[in-house]
C-alpha cells in the first residue's frame, strides 16, 4: 500500500512540475510567471524581516497589536468547524481516488491513514506559500526550516481538526445528538460566553479605561476569562513559531499525532459522504470550467429565493440584475440582510457608547478603521473577485447572443448585479466609519476625525458616488473579458498554475491603472469645483457641489464605456470547447 501511494504522490508531483515548466515555453505563460516572480521578489523576498516568528521573538515590542490578535484567526477557524460543519462527515476524496482506492484491496483504515498523510502533504505546499509570504528571505535562513515546520503544523492541524470535528459530529448524530439539539447547545454556550465576557468587561471597566493605548486595551481584554481560555488551543498551535527547536518539534509532532489518533479512533463511516462530496466537487469543477467562477460551497444546487419579484423588472437590464443576483447563490445578499446588518452595527455602537461613555472613541476608532478597510477593499479589490457579470456568463454566450437586444443593453444589465452587491458592502463600510467616529473625541484627534456636520457630508457624498464609481470600475474587467475571453474562462483540461496567478495579478494592476485613468478626470473636476466654491459656499456645500459635478462627468464616461462594451460584445465569438 505504502509503495503504491508513494508512487502516486511522487509521480503526480513530478508530472505537475513538468507540466508547469512546459507551459512556460508559451510567451503568455512566461509573462504571467515572470510577473508573479517579480512581485514576490520585490514585496516579500527582498524583505529580510516581518516574520510572524519575529513578532514573538525575545525582545519583540510588547505593545504591538498584531501578535496579540493573531491567535484569533486560528481560533475562528477551529470554531467554524464546530459552528458551521458540513452535513456529512468530511474526509475528502477525489473521484479518481474513489474509483482506484475504494475498490483497492485495502482495509478502510488504510484509506483514512492515506487521507491524513495526503492532507499533511498538501499542507506542506500551503505552508511553504504562507511561510514565504510572511517570512520573506528569512525562510532561507537556518531558522527558516523551523518556521516552515511551524506553518506545516498550523495548516495541517487545522485541516485534520476539520476532519476530526466533522467525524465527531457525525458520531454524535448517530448517538442521538441531532443537528437541532447541537445548534441549541452551541447557541446556549455562545450566549453564556458572551454574557460572561460582558460581565467581565464591566467589572474591569476602570482598568480598561485607564489603558494608555489600543494595544494595552486589547491585551487586557483578551487576557480576561473566558476569552483567554478560548484562545488556548490557538496558542498551542502557534507555539512552534516562537519555541526553541526541540520544543517546537516535540509540540508539532504531538499536535499532529493527537489529531491523527482522534480521527482514527472515531471509526465513523465516511464512504457515502465522500462519494457524494466527490460527485459534487466534480460538478463544481465542471461549472467553474464553464463559467470561470469559483464556488466554495459543495452543497447541491437548490431553488433560490428571488432577490425581488421579476414583475418589477420593467426593463431587460433589471431582468439581468435579477438573474445574476440569483446566480450569486448568496441569500444573504437580500435588502433585508443589509438592513439587519446596518441595524446590528447601530445597536453595537449604541451599546459600546453606553458602556464606555467618553472612552468610546477607543473602540470607535477601531470600528471606523474596519469600516474604512471594508470600504477600500470593496472599491479596490471587490471588482476583481465579484464576477456576477459577463465573466461568469461567458459560458452562456450562445444563449446571450440569441436575445433580441443590442450588445450595450446586455452589458448594462450584466454590470448591475456586482455593482449592487458591492455598493451594499461599501455603504456598510461608510456607515461603520461614520458611527465609529460618532460621539466624544479627544481634542488631539478632532482635526483628523472632522466635525460632526462635515462627517455627515463626507459620508453622504461617498455614499452617493459609490454606485457610479463601482459601475465605472466593472466596465474594466468586463471589457477585458470581451477582449481576452480565454483569460476568464478555464477550459476543461487546461492546467492551472503559477502563470495564471501571475495573469490575475497583472490584471489586478491593470484594473487599478484603469481605475485611476477613469477616475482622474471626474476627481480633478470634483476637486477643482470643491476648491473654487468653498470660498463662497463653505466646505460642506462645496464638497457636495464637487461630488455632483464629478459624478456627472463619471456618468458620461460610464455611458461611453457601456456603448463601447456593447460593440465589443457584439463582436465576441463563443469559445470552442
Amino acid at each position, binding site marked *: *500500500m505504502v*509503495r*503504491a501511494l508513494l*508512487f*502516486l504522490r511522487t*509521480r*503526480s*508531483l513530478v*508530472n*505537475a512540475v513538468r*507540466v508547469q515548466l512546459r507551459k512556460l515555453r508559451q510567451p503568455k505563460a512566461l509573462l504571467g510567471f515572470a510577473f508573479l516572480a517579480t512581485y514576490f521578489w520585490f514585496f516579500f523576498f527582498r524583505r529580510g524581516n516581518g516574520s510572524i516568528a519575529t513578532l514573538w521573538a525575545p525582545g519583540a515590542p510588547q505593545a504591538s497589536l498584531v501578535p496579540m490578535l493573531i491567535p484569533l484567526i486560528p481560533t475562528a477557524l477551529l470554531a467554524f468547524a464546530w459552528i458551521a460543519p458540513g452535513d456529512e462527515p468530511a474526509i475528502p476524496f*477525489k*473521484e*479518481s481516488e*474513489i*474509483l*482506484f*482506492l*475504494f*475498490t*483497492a*484491496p*485495502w*482495509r*478502510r483504515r488504510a484509506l483514512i491513514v492515506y487521507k491524513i498523510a495526503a492532507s499533511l502533504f498538501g499542507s506542506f505546499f500551503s505552508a511553504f506559500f504562507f511561510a514565504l509570504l510572511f517570512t520573506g528571505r528569512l525562510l532561507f535562513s537556518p531558522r527558516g526550516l523551523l518556521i516552515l515546520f511551524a506553518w506545516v503544523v498550523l495548516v495541517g492541524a487545522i485541516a485534520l481538526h476539520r476532519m476530526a470535528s466533522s467525524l465527531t459530529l457525525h458520531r454524535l448524530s448517530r448517538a442521538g445528538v441531532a443537528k437541532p439539539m447541537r445548534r441549541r447547545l452551541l447557541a446556549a454556550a455562545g450566549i453564556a460566553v458572551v454574557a460572561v465576557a460582558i460581565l467581565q468587561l464591566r467589572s474591569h471597566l476602570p482598568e480598561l479605561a485607564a489603558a494608555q493605548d489600543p494595544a494595552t486595551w486589547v491585551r487586557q481584554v483578551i487576557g480576561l476569562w473566558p476569552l483567554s481560555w478560548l484562545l488556548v488551543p490557538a496558542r498551542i498551535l502557534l507555539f512552534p513559531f516562537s519555541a526553541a527547536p526541540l520544543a517546537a518539534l516535540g509540540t508539532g509532532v504531538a499536535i499532529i499525532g493527537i489529531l491523527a489518533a482522534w480521527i482514527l479512533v472515531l471509526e465513523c*463511516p465516511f*464512504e*457515502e459522504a465522500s*462519494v457524494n462530496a466527490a460527485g459534487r466537487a*466534480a460538478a463544481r469543477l465542471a461549472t467553474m470550467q464553464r463559467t470561470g467562477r469559483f464556488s466554495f460551497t459543495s452543497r447541491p444546487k437548490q431553488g433560490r429565493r428571488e432577490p425581488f419579484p421579476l414583475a418589477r423588472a420593467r426593463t431587460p437590464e433589471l431582468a439581468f440584475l435579477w438573474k445574476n443576483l440569483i446566480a450569486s447563490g448568496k441569500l444573504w445578499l437580500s435588502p433585508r440582510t443589509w438592513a439587519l446588518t446596518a441595524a446590528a452595527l447601530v445597536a453595537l455602537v449604541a451599546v459600546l457608547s453606553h458602556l464606555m461613555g467618553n472612552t468610546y472613541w477607543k473602540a470607535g476608532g477601531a470600528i471606523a478603521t474596519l469600516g474604512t478597510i471594508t470600504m477600500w477593499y470593496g472599491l479596490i479589490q471587490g471588482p476583481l473577485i465579484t464576477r456576477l457579470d459577463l465573466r461568469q456568463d461567458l459560458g452562456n454566450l450562445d444563449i446571450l447572443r440569441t436575445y433580441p437586444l443590442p450588445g450595450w443593453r446586455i452589458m448594462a444589465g450584466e454590470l448591475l448585479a456586482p455593482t449592487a452587491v458591492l455598493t451594499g458592502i461599501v455603504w456598510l463600510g461608510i456607515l461603520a466609519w461614520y458611527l465609529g467616529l460618532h460621539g466624544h473625541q479627544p481634542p488631539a484627534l478632532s482635526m483628523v476625525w472632522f466635525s460632526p456636520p462635515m462627517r455627515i457630508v463626507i459620508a453622504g457624498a461617498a455614499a452617493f458616488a459609490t454606485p457610479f464609481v463601482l459601475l465605472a470600475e466593472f466596465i474594466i474587467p468586463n471589457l477585458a473579458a470581451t477582449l481576452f475571453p480565454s483569460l476568464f474562462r478555464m477550459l476543461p*483540461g*487546461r*492546467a492551472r498554475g503559477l502563470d495564471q496567478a501571475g495573469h490575475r495579478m497583472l490584471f489586478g494592476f491593470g484594473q487599478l491603472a484603469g481605475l485611476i485613468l477613469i477616475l482622474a478626470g471626474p476627481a480633478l473636476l470634483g476637486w477643482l469645483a470643491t476648491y473654487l466654491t468653498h470660498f463662497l459656499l463653505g466646505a460642506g456645500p462645496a464638497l457636495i457641489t464637487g461630488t455632483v459635478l464629478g459624478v456627472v462627468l463619471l456618468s458620461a464616461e460610464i455611458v461611453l464605456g457601456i456603448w463601447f462594451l456593447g460593440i465589443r460584445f457584439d463582436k465576441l465569438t463563443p469559445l470552442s470547447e
Partner: protein
Amino acid sequence: MIEVAALQKRYGDHVAVRDLSFRVGPGELLGLVGPNGAGKTTTLRCLTGIIPATEGTILIDGVDLKADPVAAKRRYSFFPDEPRLFDYLTVAQHLGFVARIYGVADADTRARELLERFELTDKAGELPAALSRGMKQKLVIACGLMHNPSVLFFDEPLTGLDPLGIRRMKDLIRSLAKSGASIILSSHLLHLLEEVCSHVLILKQGVTVASGTLAEVTNRFSNGESNVSLEEIFIRATGDSET
C-alpha cells in the same frame, strides 16, 4: 462468481435497496436495469465495496466482501460510467500504480500487453488531459484488467462513446464473459442488454421486479405474445416509469 443474498442499503429511514438476492456464475452476464432512482448505482457501489451495505451478504468467488474485503477486492474490477483518472499520472503510470496496488507480478509485460490491446502504446507518456474520452475509457478498462479479475462490474459502459467505440466495447464485454468472467452490467440502454446479456435483473424502487435469463423474464411479461422486445418487457415490468 457473484452471490448476493438479502442485500439491503438504507440511508437513514430511506431504503434504497431492499432484500436483493441473485447469483451470477462464470461466463454469465447479468444486466441490471431499472428506472431512475431504482437503486442500480447504489447496488453497484455496495457490490464493489465503495459504500458498505447495511445488511446482507456479498460473496465474490466465495469470499465474503464484508468479512474479508481485501481478499474479495482482489478478485474484481469496477468500471464507472465516467472515466475518472488521476490528473498528473501518465497512461503508463496509471497501469504502474494499479500494478502496485494489486501486487501484479511481471507488471511491465502485462502493462505493455494491455497498452497494445487497447491501442494506447503511442499515448503511454501522455497525461489524461491529452486523451479523448474514448481513450480515457480504454485506460480505465486497461487498469481494471491489469490484475486479471474474475468478476467485472460495468456502469453505463457505452456513455460518451462513438459508434466504433460502442462496437468495440460490446465485443470486449462479450469476450470477457466468454473467457469465464462473471459480469454485471448496469445500463439504461435496453438494446445493449438484449445484445450482450445472458441474464437480466429489473429493479424498481430498490426491489427486484423480475430476475432470470432473458428468456425467462420475457416469458413472464410477454402475456403469450411473441417477439416482445426487452423495452416492452421493461415498461410492462416497471409500469410507466421514466427510464
